[in-house]
């Protein structure tokens, strides 16, 4: 970990060396480790220490960028020079709004000393605790436990400087018993929120109940979705359509639906980068403070999140959701919500199942891909436990199914919302979501397992 003082000095030195009209420097550092297990043994166990500076410069309205993970002054100077050369060769960007100026950023504590100093031995002992339990039950466990510290800082030539250090802990496991498998996963920034063995036992119990699955025909069924499956639904709705660039280009599920009740009134979704119940980051990669943005309010589509460029196109202020603009991919993706919350309901998971007369209870979705953006139609598979429910009781496990389903329609058909939420993460963000009961969900294929 570099620490705020060293980071500030490094970025100030970089700004001082720059010969561009405007300069933005983003520092990302990661000091983390991951212990991976399979077949009831630790088979991969790794650690990484990396830090990089992402540079964006403007020469007039010409923009260039560069990235380096060499942090000495000479390397930074070379990287700055590369960015300026790139800008000099590029045509003007007519709608470049300029770099944002300074604004007050909330200090949010998301650093847990215990998570920061977790040792290889601590991780191995946690994993071995789960593996011991799995062996005793004749089960086979696989998964990963990771801990680490990240630092993010943004400085620009208009006077912005903001810094955040946080910890992150992730755990996921697939436990197999005979032909049944179960799953458990959690994300947090505090170590104390983790009980690896308890989560593993939840997966083991699910696997035991998933043994000897029967076939169910493809079709449209009511479903209860565990939070793991809900995270996929919410994640795609956010990533594929809740950013302003997607809306401005007409490829979002929000287009033509602003202000309309499109989803169930039980669905409220918002993004809040300052909420310690998530994994907070209180500013974006342009150094703009993150605002709390309600994307869907009781089923009504309220609007997307913005960065400075998409906001300027509409005469608005950025909501603080820019990705690092030195990443070429960010130009296509535009701003995205990365700290997403869904309002819980008042029904425990058992009650959601009890209200299901005939339908499916799904643990998680796997390998989901966007088929069509208009209704956020997604295909994917069920995995690690899917069950037939009859008369409000879990009757028997069924074989995995392929689905092809508009996630907009699924969220329009929400009939019940779980009272407990889980914090889960993927490549694009973190999501605190409950279980859901959905009136109709379309399955289009089956497997023999």
């Amino acid at each position, binding site marked *: 970990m570099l620490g705020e003082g060293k980071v500030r000095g490094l970025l100030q030195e970089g700004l001082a060396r720059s010969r561009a009209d405007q300069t933005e420097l983003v520092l990302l550092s990661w000091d983390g480790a991951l212990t991976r297990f399979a077949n009831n043994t*630790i088979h991969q166990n790794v650690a990484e220490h990396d830090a990089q500076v992402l540079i964006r410069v403007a020469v007039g309205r010409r923009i260039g960028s560069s990235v380096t993970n060499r942090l000495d002054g000479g390397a930074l100077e070379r990287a700055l020079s590369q960015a300026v*050369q790139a800008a000099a060769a*590029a045509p003007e960007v007519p709608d470049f709004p300029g770099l944002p100026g300074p604004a007050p950023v909330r200090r949010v504590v998301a650093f847990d000393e215990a998570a920061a100093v977790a040792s290889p031995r601590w*991780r191995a002992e946690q994993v071995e605790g789960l593996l011991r339990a799995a062996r005793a039950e004749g089960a086979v466990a*696989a998964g990963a436990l990771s801990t680490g510290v990240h630092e993010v800082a943004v400085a620009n030539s208009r006077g912005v400087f903001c810094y955040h250090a946080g910890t992150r802990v992730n755990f996921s496991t697939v436990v197999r018993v005979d032909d049944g498998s179960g799953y458990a996963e959690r994300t947090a920034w505090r170590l104390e929120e983790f009980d690896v063995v308890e989560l593993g036992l939840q997966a083991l119990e699910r696997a035991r109940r998933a043994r000897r699955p029967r076939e169910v025909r493809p079709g449209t069924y009511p479903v209860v979705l565990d939070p793991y499956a809900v995270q996929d639904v919410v994640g795609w709705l956010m990533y594929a359509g809740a950013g302003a660039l997607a809306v401005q280009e007409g490829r979002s599920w929000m287009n033509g639906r602003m202000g309309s009740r499109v989803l169930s009134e039980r669905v409220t979704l918002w993004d809040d980068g300052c909420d310690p119940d998530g994994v907070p980051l209180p500013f974006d990669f342009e150094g703009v403070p993150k605002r709390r943005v309600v994307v869907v309010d009781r089923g009504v589509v309220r609007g997307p999140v913005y960065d400075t460029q998409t906001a300027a196109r509409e005469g608005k202020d950025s909501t603080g959701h820019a990705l690092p603009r030195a990443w070429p991919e960010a*130009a296509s993706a535009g701003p995205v919500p990365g700290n997403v919350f869904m309002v819980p309901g008042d029904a425990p998971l058992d009650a959601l199942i009890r209200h299901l007369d005939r339908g499916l209870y799904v643990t998680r979705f796997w390998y989901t891909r966007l088929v069509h953006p*208009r209704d956020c139609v997604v295909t994917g598979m069920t995995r690690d436990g899917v069950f037939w429910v009859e008369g409000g009781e879990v009757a028997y496990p069924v074989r995995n199914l392929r689905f092809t389903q508009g996630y907009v329609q699924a969220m329009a058909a929400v009939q019940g919302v779980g009272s407990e939420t889980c914090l889960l993460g993927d490549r694009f963000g973190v999501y605190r979501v409950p279980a859901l009961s959905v009136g109709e969900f379309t399955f289009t*294929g089956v*497997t023999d397992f």
Partner: protein
Amino acid sequence: MDELVARALNAAQLHGARYADVRVVETTRQAVLVRNGAVQAVSWSEDVGFGVRVVADGAWGFASSHRLEREEAERVARLAVEIARASALAKREDVDLGEPVVQRGSYRTPVETDPFGVSLETKLALLLRADEEMRRVRGVTTTEGELVFIRQRKTFASTEGSWITQEIVESGCGIEATAVRDGEVQRRSYPNSVGRHQQTRGWEFVVEQDLVGNAPRVAEEAVALLSADPCPDEVTTLILGGSQVALQVHESCGHAIELDRVFGAEAGFAGTSFLTPDKLGNFRYGSELVNITADATLPGGLGTFGWDDEGVPAQRVDIVREGLFVGYLTDRETARRLLCLLGPSPYVTGRSNGTARASGWNRIPMVRMTNVNLLPGSWKLEDLIADTDRGVFMDTNRSWSIDDRRLNFQFGCEIAWEIRGGRRTRMLRNPIYTGITPEFWRSCDAVCDADHWVLWGTPNCGKGEPLQVGHTGHGAAPARFRNVRVFGKV
């Protein structure tokens, strides 16, 4: 550099490693992105660091750092051994790498024109011109073009005595046009989707693709798709374009033959495989026309190199021979384990076939695809269409999904045409096909010839935790499959 490597190896041994290797990797990347006539990104990046992998107390440990300093080399080596000792708390058996591998030498991607030597102005002019050609077409709403160039220099050294240096160069390019009308969104891409096509070649690769020449067609097809009929829902004959065959090979064969995956190493994340060891040498994977190789020696592939990241030389191995499943992708550890499990046979040698690859200095090598190829058949595409009375021809991937054992897949393509009476007729939108891997490949009754065969690049293959994005190659030509479920209403 040499001193850093030597120090790391020494430190690992001093702290108790039975085996250690060090990889120093330096990657330079240039990316240029044009969108709607404006330059969105002109980016240059460098990424350097080293990783130390050790076996201590019979278990694996790995640590890595971006700081190329002698003291850091010693710290990282010490940490790798500490991690290995922690791994040993939960080990069932000792790591077995088989016979030592001792290799020395160097390898360099042959390029005609160094892409980093071509001016930025030339690159921007190419993309802006292609973009302009696309935007001339009425009805196009979003256009995008991308160029990517990568140079990776790697040094590998091990306590067994290997010392290898390599320089791999990649060039990638692509354009795409999107059309939106009345809530319908359609996209066409060229030469491939998901951003680009890529090979281990120089600037000459980009020139050959003729982005500007293809731009009007790409844009016109995107607009035409808005008015096209949806692909009908039926079981029919399916002809796939070469890039889609390449992805079909990647997902339903390439991942299924990764031996670490077969042994459960990915069970917690990417999944396992239906191609279990009992099927080796006796399972009919496809029809007799289906011949698949893994070939890291093919010029130009994203899986082409001199040695893998364990120092094992690049090889060509048979995977499927006349439809029969005959080979896995292996690294040193899994090859040894397969030998212990099945004993020696024509399909089992106990030696790695050189597919251990790491995505960078901060990741461990794992079994990855090299160039996994469907070998060419004997058909011309026009003859194949003429020989098809009724069916659908689909091209260019739009979405892909497959289950965690690599059996049940569903792929969407950007475009399709109906085939009636041996002729390509009306255009179809939102075409999707679905199937079960061995049933699908057994239904293959024609593969186009070498004139249609392209070594496609897949620069976005995900596997492992922490995630590693790998670059793989897939030689493929258009092919025909019978009795496939297709649909298009979404």
